[in-house]
């Protein structure tokens, strides 16, 4: 059974804030369809509630909060957003002389919601493995993975070290959520959002990075 709650407005009853911009609500049937697609790629939403609002904050598509088995979907206008992503990534493919077929597949609202569901699901699964990594960081299982993140991040390890512990752990957690998502859904038209250019330029490094994550998470 899938637990889906539609929130009308910018806040949930407990005060959780989706954003200040009124966007586009997602029909329950669409969320069910995308959950089924995400499940077919390895997600298991047992015990997880999906809360979907018609409000968003312009910067993200969804989020989770530590300690809650809830995935919050924000009300981004995905028809416009998918068209933007598809055009923009096509431009990047052209600059890199890469076949642009994948750009057409990115213009797809279902795939976009699947990306967000899997991204947030992977955060929840990582928290199951690591506990609150924002506070505690990552243990030695993640050494090789973080070594690759440090090599591929703009500004390298120096830039990572300029962040305070919590923000650094949070950023590494975002790389993990995206790479974990791509391990579950390798044919996704959406690249790791933290390293799109790097991964397109150096696909073998991206593959190695994901292999190390697979080992770290015991997948």
């Amino acid at each position, binding site marked *: 059974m899938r637990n889906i709650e539609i929130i009308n407005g910018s806040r949930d009853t407990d005060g959780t804030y989706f954003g200040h911009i009124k966007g586009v609500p997602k029909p329950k049937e669409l969320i069910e369809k995308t959950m089924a697609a995400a499940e077919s790629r390895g997600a298991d939403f047992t015990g997880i509630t999906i809360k979907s609002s018609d409000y968003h904050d312009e910067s993200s598509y969804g989020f989770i909060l530590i300690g809650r088995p809830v995935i919050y979907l924000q009300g981004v206008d995905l028809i416009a*957003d998918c068209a933007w*992503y598809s055009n923009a990534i096509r431009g990047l493919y052209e600059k890199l002389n890469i076949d642009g077929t994948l750009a057409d597949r990115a213009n797809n609202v279902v795939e976009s919601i699947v990306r967000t569901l899997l991204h947030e699901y992977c955060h929840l699964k990582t928290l199951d493995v690591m506990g609150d990594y924002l506070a505690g*960081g990552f243990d030695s299982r993640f050494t090789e993975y973080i070594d690759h993140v*440090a090599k*591929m991040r703009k500004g390298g390890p120096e830039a990572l*070290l300029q962040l305070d512990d919590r923000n650094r752990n949070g950023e590494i957690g975002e790389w993990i959520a995206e790479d974990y998502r791509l391990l579950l859904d390798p044919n996704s038209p959406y690249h790791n959002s933290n390293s799109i250019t790097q991964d397109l330029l150096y696909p073998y490094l991206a593959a190695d990075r994901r292999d190390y994550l697979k080992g770290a998470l015991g997948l």
Partner: protein
Amino acid sequence: MRDKRPNLDISSDEIESVRKEVAYRVKKGVSKSELEKIMAPAKKAKVVRTATKKVSQAHS
């Protein structure tokens, strides 16, 4: 912990800069001390756990 909108406004100059930077980082490698600093919070947690274990072993 958010699925963020990526930046896709990337110029050819920026692509070249990323190409050079990653190649440099791979060649140079990340030093052990830098990696230890990046992983530092976890190491602190490990020390605490180890210390607790030693205490409990001492009492057994």
